[in-house]
């Protein structure tokens, strides 16, 4: 015979304070759990969606990021002649030679500074990254000391709003446009004319060469050829792969710290649930005896108590997830250790995280409820009925 | 017995022939949710010192409420309760606590001993509110335990004692401070016949030999027979009162 589920629900309702306290404990753990996953996912998503699988990036061999890489004009010329590169309407290869440097800028309204990525680009750079859209103003003119800044930079750094200017490389650069590239790293970059940047920084070399592939299948072929070319010492990656690698170190850190913490916390929450459920059993010994005497089996009692624990967990999980979903409005900006430049990203709640959060909460509830429920089911009827205090 | 009498009589401020307890026009009602429940309506009575009275009446007659009011653990809506010259209905919470500690010894139906304390420690508990030294406390506790005949169980925990034994410890706790009145709420309600008889004997002994004033509530007719005076309550009103002939005891 089954005990109606209302029994479990009402029992939770009757001991409101204890239920509220236990549920809040669970909620806090699920909150931390999902926040960590959301942070790691947000970072990964930002960096991965920054790249396109149709683009290939050429860097100097052993460079782990564009900042370290150098490719001279001669090598750039060799790379530009590869037959796998897609051609534009003008019949020319869709290839951009870019220069990447980091500059230190002041954060608005603080004395704090951060490294910002400065990308010297050419006309093809816009074509290769269709997700980068100009939202206000215009693009910089070739040969002028003008820059376009990413939306997240414009908001947070001094001198980066439209019409303002910043100084670097002994020149003053006017912000003529603001670009938005959604949730990608380009929203945290500053773009200008590559030739102007090379002059300003006295850097006669490019950082990397980015080109569009005629088709994705051709990637391995062009990679093999370029990497084995004796005139070059380069490494070729798809743009997606490159950005994924950029996020790895940070993501690993967030995950290690996050997971260690969550496992420690969950132990705490399971203990909390256990305390509550044990006392629920202890307080209802007579009641359990009565239920058993009425003919409910051990399994029914076990199920009723497990259900109660599961409910505790799920309610806590839902509250925790709801709270963490508000985190999505927060943009986190930090320095990516790998590229050493500022990256801004959002907490991202994915269905997968939501599900894992709930599952985690359910498991915590069940784990906390298991032993007490077994105790409840095993109570000898006669003894239970006689316990009266 | 020698130890108990060694504590000596308490000096009272009021004159000897005044009643010890005077209850005047006592009203009390409770609020249970939306409805008002009238429990006592205009009760008057007076109890002289060294008296042994019992309140009887059906459930809901107000006898326990009257007892609680006399013991100072509840407050009347209207009326006066003057005990040893003090109107306790006017005392605030903190004064009332001190007053109880000094003047009332309470005996409960379910003994209400603190389960984590030994019999000795339970009896010692009310003495912690006095200024007695540890040595003096010991003297009093042992005397009380001896009077109630439970000295041999002094270092047992309540769970290791029978109901009758627990009630003896509880009575020892009630008399250890030599209170002005002893208040008992169904002291035999949870006991078997033999234990109940022993507890009643003990109460009679306390009243007759040691001159303790006892106020008791019960619905046990055997218990009611052992008091000197019986008040019958019904629906919050004092219906009847009569004296028992105790010469047979």
């Amino acid at each position: 015979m089954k005990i109606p589920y209302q029994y479990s629900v009402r029992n939770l309702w009757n001991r409101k304070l204890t239920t509220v306290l236990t549920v809040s404990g669970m909620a806090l753990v699920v909150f931390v759990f999902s926040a960590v996953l959301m942070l790691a996912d947000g970072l990964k998503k930002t960096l991965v969606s920054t790249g396109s699988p149709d683009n290939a990036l050429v860097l100097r061999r052993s460079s782990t990021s564009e900042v370290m890489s150098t490719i001279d004009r001669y090598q750039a010329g060799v790379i530009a002649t590869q037959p796998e590169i897609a051609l534009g309407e003008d019949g020319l290869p869709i290839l951009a030679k870019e220069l990447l440097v980091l500059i230190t800028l002041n954060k608005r309204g603080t004395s704090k500074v951060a490294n910002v990525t400065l990308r010297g680009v050419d006309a093809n750079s816009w074509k290769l990254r269709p997700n980068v859209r100009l939202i206000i103003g215009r693009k910089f003119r070739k040969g002028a000391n003008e820059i376009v800044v990413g939306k997240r930079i414009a908001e947070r750094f001094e001198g980066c709003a439209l019409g303002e200017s910043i100084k670097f490389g002994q020149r003053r650069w006017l912000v003529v446009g603001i670009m938005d590239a959604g949730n990608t790293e380009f929203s945290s970059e500053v773009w200008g004319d590559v030739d102007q940047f090379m002059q300003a920084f006295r850097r006669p070399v490019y950082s990397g060469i980015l080109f569009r592939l005629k088709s994705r299948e051709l990637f391995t072929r062009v990679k093999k050829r370029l990497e084995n070319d004796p005139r070059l010492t380069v490494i070729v990656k798809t743009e997606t792969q490159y950005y994924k690698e950029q996020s790895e170190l940070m993501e690993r850190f967030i995950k290690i710290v996050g997971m260690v913490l969550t496992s420690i916390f969950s132990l705490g929450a399971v203990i909390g649930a256990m305390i509550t459920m044990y006392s629920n059993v202890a307080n209802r010994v007579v009641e359990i005896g009565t239920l058993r005497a009425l003919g409910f089996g051990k399994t029914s009692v076990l199920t009723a108590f497990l259900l109660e624990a599961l409910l505790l967990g799920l309610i806590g999980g839902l509250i925790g997830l709801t709270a963490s979903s508000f985190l999505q409005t927060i943009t986190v900006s930090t320095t990516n250790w790998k590229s050493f430049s500022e990256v801004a990203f959002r907490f991202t709640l994915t269905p997968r995280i939501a599900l894992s959060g709930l599952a985690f909460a359910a498991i915590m509830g069940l784990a906390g409820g298991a032993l007490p429920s077994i105790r409840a089911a095993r109570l000898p009827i006669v003894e239970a009925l006689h316990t009266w205090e | 017995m020698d130890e108990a009498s060694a504590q000596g009589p308490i000096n009272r401020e009021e004159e000897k022939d005044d009643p010890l307890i005077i209850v005047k026009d006592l009203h009390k009602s409770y609020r249970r949710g939306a409805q008002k429940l009238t429990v006592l309506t205009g009760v008057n009575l007076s109890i002289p010192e060294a008296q042994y009275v019992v309140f009887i009446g059906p459930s809901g007659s107000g006898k326990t409420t009257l007892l609680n009011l006399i013991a100072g653990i509840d407050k009347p809506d209207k009326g006066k309760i003057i005990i040893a010259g003090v109107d306790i209905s006017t005392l605030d919470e903190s004064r009332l606590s001190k007053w109880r500690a000094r003047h009332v010894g309470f005996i409960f139906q379910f003994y209400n001993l603190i389960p984590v304390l030994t019999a000795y420690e339970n009896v010692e508990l009310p003495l912690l509110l006095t200024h007695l030294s540890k040595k003096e406390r010991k003297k009093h506790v042992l005397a009380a335990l001896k009077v109630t005949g439970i000295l041999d169980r002094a270092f047992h925990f309540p769970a290791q004692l029978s109901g009758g034994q627990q009630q003896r410890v509880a009575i020892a706790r009630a008399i250890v401070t030599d209170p002005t009145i002893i208040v008992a709420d169904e002291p035999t309600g949870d006991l078997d016949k033999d234990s109940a008889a022993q507890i009643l004997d003990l109460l009679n002994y306390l009243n007759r030999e040691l001159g303790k004033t006892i106020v008791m509530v019960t619905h046990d007719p055997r218990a009611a027979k052992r008091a000197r005076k019986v008040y019958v309550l019904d629906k919050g009103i004092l219906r009847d009162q009569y004296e028992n002939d105790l010469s047979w005891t």
Partner: protein
Amino acid sequence: MNLLKYIARNTFRHKLRTSLTVLGMAIVVLAYCLLRTVVAAWYAGVEASSPNRLITRNAVSLIFPLPISYLNRIREVPGVEAVSYGRWFGGIYINEKNFFPQFAIDADHYLDLYPEFIIPEKQLEAFKKDRRGCIAGRLIARKYGWKVGDTITIRGTIFPGTWDFILRGIYHGIDRGTDESQFFFHWDYLNESLKKTMPIRADHVGWFVVKIKDVSQAAEISRKIDALFQNSLAETLTETEKAFQMGFVSMTEAIVVAIKIISYVVIGIILVVLSNTMAMTARERTREYGVLKTLGFQEGFLFKLIIGESLFIAVTGGILGIILSFPAARIFAKSLETFFPIFNLSAKTLLSGLLAATLVGFLSGIFPSIRASRTSIVDSLGHVG
């Protein structure tokens, strides 16, 4: 019989519940201590910095080098006692997971400016004499099993090629706050190789380390140094080592803030768990509290009784948590070695953990105490169970 004895006996009334709560408390205090230690590890570089060292770097950003020719001009600034220089090498040992910082340094003087790195005299001499020599911190030497005389091969990322170094010395820190994971080799070795392969990048350093005589002159000297190179191709930015290190911390501040927030959330979790236990306990003892009040005990006594018990549980759990922190920190330090070469439980951290536990114990007892004192005697005596 006294109050303490009564509290102690009450605590052990529900052995299972009390032990579970103590355990929960211990786990959370442990988490709290670890988190605070992570935050402290973040600031380890700042803590270890010396007030009499300034760092001069390229004003544009750290990735831009400065010409070596600045050396003599900085040395002539009044108040400067010594100047040395280094350059970030950023190579890879075997694979990318094995991260440790490598610096190309001015072999003759750089280490003199860092008295916190202790190297046997003979090893230091051997290092100075061997242009391909290197010195490694005790931590990484132990991790990779290096011995003096070993050849260590590092693949350059910023400076292409495969570089062989011969380990000439192993340094250890003067105290537990010193980073023992650094790797030093001759700047001259790097520079000569660059002259052949990439002459444009030769004769540059990453930063200058400036030792000053008078700490109070730091700001003044910084200004003077920067003024020397104003409007040159490579303008400089000079700041105290502390500010320089702080710059690194503030770059990843968001993470530090997040960890700090979490460490408070942790306290919230345990507050909830202990409050729950105390609420249940107090509810079960409602009748007992009624009896105590009947006997004439006042609210203050009940407060002491309830808060005493919750403090007892909290502090026991806190102490247990602190004891557990030691092995846990060791494991944690191992898995985060790459990120934090210095990961020490400080007395301050442990003390604050204990303090937090005490606070939690106190707070958890308040609510049930208030409820116990508010319940009327008649109601509590009527309370069953």
